[in-house]
């Protein structure tokens, strides 16, 4: 009887705590998806009767494959770069304790304050050979004109650099936090057993923060798949049209606001959502993401 009362109590408290999230999830997660699903079946100039043909038309659009390729290259470069560099820098940061640690963490966060338009402008300034403070280096590399840099084949690399410097600092600090959760006695035992610093980092610390890296990988992948700001701003301001419809999200935007085809835009958005969900589920279930969290049925 007492046990069932405690269970009920726990359910009630849990529900109260979950309710705000649930309300927000419904309002800003589920409802938009339902609206998008309905919109994705709407009629358009291309598909006067509406229906699932919108999905097929998105896949057949001549801009779809190039945008998919662009985003694919971006992800192949961006996700591993983030994971490797962030993990490495966090492990290094973890070795620096004392008064320098706080200053270093702050230094990692500073580049993350340059986002969106600011980031694009800063990188335009840095990479434009005629304006850059590093123009001598650029010229030594044979890059003497803006057109040598701002070309379609280079865009993926430029966008990766922009996105990397915007996001890496934040994640380094987050992963540093996850390293702090490793119990000291485990590290102490490793040291007593004769493990070197690099061995402790690679064989003890890294496996113990794996789930946090998986979490980061999921979010970085989702953000990369939806890359939009960097190409859109380059196209809208710096080099008009250079990267229009470069990414899948930009293509969705074009369907909606240039092609007056909200059905196709919603269909593409839902396809991106599906890829994100499937990728996340695969990553979660192929790793021990939910294991060893310390929360066990009592």
């Amino acid at each position, binding site marked *: 009887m007492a046990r069932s009362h405690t269970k009920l109590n726990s359910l009630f408290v849990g529900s109260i705590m979950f309710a705000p999230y649930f309300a927000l999830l419904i309002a800003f997660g589920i409802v938009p998806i339902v609206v998008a699903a309905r919109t994705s079946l709407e009629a358009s100039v291309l598909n006067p009767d509406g229906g699932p043909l919108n999905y097929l038309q998105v896949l057949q659009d001549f801009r779809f494959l190039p945008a998919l390729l662009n985003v694919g290259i971006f992800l192949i470069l961006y996700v591993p770069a983030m994971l490797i560099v962030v993990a490495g820098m966090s492990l290094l940061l973890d070795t620096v304790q004392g008064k320098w640690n706080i200053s270093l963490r702050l230094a990692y966060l500073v580049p993350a304050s340059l986002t969106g338009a600011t980031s694009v402008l800063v990188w335009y300034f840095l990479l434009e050979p005629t304006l850059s403070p590093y123009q001598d280096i650029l010229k030594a590399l044979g890059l003497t004109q803006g*057109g040598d840099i701002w070309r379609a084949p280079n865009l993926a690399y430029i966008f990766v650099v922009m996105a990397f410097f915007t996001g890496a600092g934040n994640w380094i600090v987050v992963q540093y936090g996850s390293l702090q959760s490793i119990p000291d006695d485990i590290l102490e035992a490793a040291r007593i057993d004769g493990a070197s610093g690099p061995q402790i980092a690679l064989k003890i610390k890294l496996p113990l923060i794996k789930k946090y890296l998986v979490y980061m990988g999921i979010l970085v992948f989702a953000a990369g798949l939806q890359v939009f700001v960097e190409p859109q701003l380059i196209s809208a301001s710096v080099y008009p*049209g250079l990267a229009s*419809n470069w990414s899948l999200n930009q293509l969705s935007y074009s369907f909606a606001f240039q092609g007056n085809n909200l059905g196709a835009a919603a269909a593409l958005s839902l396809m991106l959502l599906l890829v994100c969900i499937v990728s996340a589920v695969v990553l979660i279930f192929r790793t021990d993401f939910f294991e060893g969290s310390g929360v066990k049925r009592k």
Partner: protein
Amino acid sequence: MLVLKVGFGEWLERSRSRRNPVTPVLGGHPRVPQAEAYQKLMAGKVDIKIEVIAQADAQTKITLVNRAKKGWPDIIFGTAADTAQFLDPSNGFAADLTTTVSKDIFTGFGEGNSDCLFDGKYYCLKNDLANTVLWYNTKIFKELKLTVPTTMEEFAATAMKLKGTGYSAGAIGDQNYYASFLQSSECPLAQITAPNTVRIAPEDPKCTRVSKLVQPLLDAGVVDKRSSFDAGFIADVAKKNKVAMTLGPSWFGDFVIKPADSWGVPAGEIAAANMPAWGPAPDDRSGAYGGGVFTVSSHSAFPQAAADAAVWMTTSDVMAKLETTPTFPAYGPANKLWEARISVDPYYASNPYPAMAAGANKISQVDRPVRFPFVAQIGTVLQAGINGGGTLEAAQTDFAKSLQNLAPSSGYTVETK
């Protein structure tokens, strides 16, 4: 991008204030002084709310308010291509102005309002024209003993004379290549041949003659593959006052060549000449690089007031003043007043107005405003091809192919021959 909202009187304004919130004016848009002048003029009679949004956001904004079914601006400033999208039944924002604007006004525009004519009806009013002319440096021409070209062949020959002199015949790596060369040549890349049918034919002789004429100039290095706005071109060539001549729109003088933070060419050197002709009339058209329009909302609660505001914005005497209208007014009488200002501008070596006026009446009408993002494709494909160092023929063909692919998604049937 300028968005105007109009309403009658304070009492009416109060009654509809929920539907028509006061919106802020953000500085910096060339049309804002024009709108503010009208706002001042109509104070107490018609309430004008001014809002500035990015030009690229016009279609986005209208699509969203169409979706919300409320919040439409009464008038919006943008491009004729926006209007082509807005008048499509799937959008429906653009109002037919045939009944709300008097015939005298349309007559006063002459050919100036032809971009707004769709299937025999006017759906917008043209603010300014941006027809292409030949800008040349009188000092350099004198130094090199050059004569001002009157045909495109002469332009090419004159440009070739610049080889080895360190002087340039301009930069083509942006929309200027389309406007000054392809459009003036009447290359059919967005030719409406029937309702919802567009002809995109890059193999037409009027397209191929362009690449044949300009490619040798590019190869010889006398025209630049970069843009006139490219920081490198400005630093290496324009700022050193090495541009002997360039084709460009009527606004190039005041906005590109003159400003100290742009090319910064000294006063007394620059003149405008008639756009060189590809052939004898009628093969002597100009192109257009820009030129805005005011589109009136079909959803306006005050359709006449909205139309009147658009008429005033495009036809009033305020159009003659530099601080309110810096570019070439499309409306004839306003243009005459503007002429009085520009023709005595001491910056120019000679009066640039006659050349601007001559080209204004000859803007090619082969390509028309279309519903698909034609100009964006110039940047994505044509400009990228030129900047990247490929041949003009390849860049033109790729550009045309991208348009052929894009047009059907906006409901057009494409003709390629």
